[in-house]
């Protein structure tokens, strides 16, 4: 694989993102092709997330988009980690499309943001995943290497 495969594709994605993004998604920074920050908001009246903005960090490897990006929520200033039964309090997101098996190279930064947005929109449980504390304390693995059990894809 050519080393710059990822940067070529990301360059094209960035061009598109800079000219237009769906409502509720804004680009915060994309200074290189390794790490981008985007803010997302939930646009409907879901009381769990109303008037809140959350920050997503994308990390790309040199094999992107053949390999998935690493996507997590980050805590910074007034950006908190949204409450969700599939989002750990350290920002790690349990979403099948971000895993080795669920990822597809036709996904992109914009489509990932939209999936996460709709994952929040459809949620009404004000809770963390079971075992959150233990997971946050003990996990040393990178998000994409964690073998999540996607028990409930409806959420």
């Amino acid at each position: 694989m050519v080393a710059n495969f990822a940067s070529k594709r990301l360059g094209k994605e960035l061009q598109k993102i800079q000219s237009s993004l769906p409502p509720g998604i804004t680009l915060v920074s994309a200074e290189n092709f390794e790490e981008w920050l985007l803010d997302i908001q939930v646009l409907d009246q879901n009381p769990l997330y109303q008037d809140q903005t959350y920050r997503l960090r994308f990390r790309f490897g040199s094999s992107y988009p053949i390999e998935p990006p690493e996507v997590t929520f980050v805590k910074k200033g007034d950006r908190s980690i949204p409450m969700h039964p599939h989002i750990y309090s350290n920002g790690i997101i349990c979403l099948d499309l971000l895993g080795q098996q669920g990822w597809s190279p036709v996904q992109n930064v914009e489509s990932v943001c939209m999936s996460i947005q709709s994952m929040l929109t459809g949620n009404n449980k004000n809770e963390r995943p079971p075992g959150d504390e233990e997971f946050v304390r003990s996990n040393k693995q990178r998000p994409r290497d964690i073998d999540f059990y996607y028990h409930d894809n409806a959420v």
Partner: protein
Amino acid sequence: MSRSMQLKEEGNRHFQSGDFVSAEALYSKAIIADPKNPALYTNRAMARLKMSLWDSVITDCNQCLELAPDNMKAHYYLAQAYLALHDYDDALDHARRAHELCARTNDKSLAAVTAQVLRCKKERWEDMERRRRREGSELEIEVLALLERERDGVLRDMTDDGEKKEVEAEWEQKLESMRRVFEKARAAEERRRKVPDWAVDDISFQVMVDPVITKSGNSYERASIMEHLRRHPTDPLTREPLTAADLRPNLALKEACAEFLEENGWAADW
């Protein structure tokens, strides 16, 4: 190990460490020890590419091709050398030949070679564009000069100053409209820069060179989908099982993409 192989290995070590001059000398010694091994010529060509010795690269590659006509690397290096020498047609021919060989043997370099094909297309188009622009601006200068000569001829035969001013203004307007015509033609060129979605590979986001179609009816650049299938034998959209043997070339789309690039070489990125 034979003498030539020893020299080649030693050359490879120098190449890896970035000492291309020593690598080249060692490959030369290896060739003297065994002039019938095609790989020695491509190795030396690779070192010479790094040293920008384009003509020597071409000689090496041609010697390799005499021994092994289907050597992918020789065609790939030839494409690079010809491109550096601004011989765009030969560069593209060899890039295409390398791509064909890569696709046939499922070579790992398919992505790099696909990028080289696009690069050749882009540079060839840019060259044609430069020439077209130059010719366009030469024509503009010529036409404007013609109009000015015509005006001066008319003015020469006039004596009345008031009338002269009127005629001058009239001609100035003609010149101005002519300039606008040329200006407009240039602006129209700039505006038409949009890549249609059908030409773009959904994995690399590049214009396709060799599109292949999946069982579900979607087309991808061969190099991209092969890279995906190496890790996950599934259709990227439907997630149904998919293998390289299921792929078919999409010849109509290939032709349409080639035609689009012919007119819009700026769209061929690398």
